[in-house]
């Protein structure tokens, strides 16, 4: 299995959680799992490979990559430019 590309949609059927890949993982180890809780609109990042996903439907799920739960990404600090 190939690692998911940027823009790939991920779904977890039991929790209904959905997310899209913003920055792809280094290998095919990123997955949504039941349990935990993720919030709509939050970005989560892999501390090993720096992959990033955006949660498009929140719920009782979690996102794992490289054997660990992905953590909420740091907020962006760029000023608005348009």
């Amino acid at each position: 299995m190939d690692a998911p590309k940027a823009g790939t949609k991920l779904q977890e059927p039991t929790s209904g959680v959905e997310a899209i890949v913003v920055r792809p993982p280094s290998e095919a180890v990123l997955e949504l799992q039941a349990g935990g809780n993720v919030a709509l609109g939050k970005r989560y990042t892999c501390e090993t490979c720096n992959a990033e996903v955006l949660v498009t439907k929140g719920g009782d799920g979690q996102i794992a990559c490289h054997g660990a739960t992905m953590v909420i990404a740091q907020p962006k600090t760029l000023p608005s430019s348009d």
Partner: protein
Amino acid sequence: MANIAMLLDLAADAMGDRRAVGDLTYADVRRLAIAAAPDVAARARGTLAFADANCQAVPVALFAAAWAGVSYAPLNYRLPPAQQQALVDRLDTGYLVETDKAETWLDELRSRATDEPAPYPDETDHPAVLLFTSGTSSEPKAAVLDHDNLLAYILNAGDFMSAGEDEAVLMVVPPFHIAGVAGTLSSIYAGRRIVPLSKFTPEAWLEAARTEHVTHAFVVPTMLARIVAVMEDQGGVELPSLRTLSYGGARMPVPVLERALELFPNAGFVNAYGLTETSSTVALLGPEDHRTAMAGDRVRLASVGRPLPGIEVEVVDEDGNLVAPGDEGRIRIRGPQVSGEYVGVDGGVDPDGWLVTGDIGTVDEEGYLFVKGRADDVIIAGGENLSPGEIEDCLLRHPRVTGAAVVGVPDDEWGEQVAAMVTISGTISADDLIEWVRSQLGGLKAPKRIEVRDELPMTPTGKLLRREVRAELGSR
């Protein structure tokens, strides 16, 4: 890849009752876009064209196209009918929201909108947006922006729902400008209310900013010059709610920027450098950079700042090698938001993914980029390369000069010589202005001829039409 419809879908799910644009909430915009989508999909032949001014229908049209899986093509509504028709013909679209008809179109959508959810297509056969470039040097070309390009920009540049409920952005660049498209998408993703202004005048801009408690705004340099002039005329005008004033789309004359920084002491200024072909901003000079430059030697007020994270911006020589700090070269850009594609034209990015722009620039020791102008605009006089921008800034520092356009015109002895077209307030002779430039920059850069006009030829998005200036000054 994904679909930009996702951005509105997220906003409507998470903050459906918040006002998105004008009177419409995020839920309203989605409901109306979904109401339009089946008809758009059936009739559009791949493209929804939108030919009206800024109004609350703009995001509805943009997302109706996304939900229908067709391209959104905003057109210059100020073109004469025959020229507008020529663009419509080139696009071969079957769905046009006509000039002055957007509100009627919205009313019609309202009459059949329901709360029935409808999914958007994850994959589409058509690019997200087709945008005609400003055509300062040639016929306008339709730039192609894919869903991936636009999403890469939006997801990289900001955070979802990062705006407070009190934030509002004044949208005055027309819908057919890349900053209009990108600003609509980024405001919706951030949850920042859009205040559309259909026609720019400095008075209308100041009035809307004040009454709508606008916190954010983007202007092109010609707009800022006119806003500054009115504020200096009237005196005592303040916009206490304005937090961020961003500008871009053309080179900002430093004298105008300095006056604006003094008039808006509490606003953070952002210079955004980007192209239609790069889905908007690729480099920016932020508020702190402006403050530091203003307090120091001010050289960096002429900079467009540093690249966004994940974007590469380089200045290279003719062989593609990086130039030394301070040396001029061609600006090239690489990153997921870069398209570089045009309808019906070969090209785009090079095999390594670089978009080689037509812009000449330099980079300083700390990586700050300076855009010197279009390569085509460089004046070569007696073997010396002269940048029109430096001479224009010099003219604009004269208290009587309100606008300046400097070009090279053919000259038998020098190859080219410097000529200028200016707008002024009060009276001043051309000879006095030539002497002014000579005293500041020396004889080589002093125009040999200066003509005074009531206005300078501009595109509707505030870019100087140099080919017209050149044609007029070179023909006599």
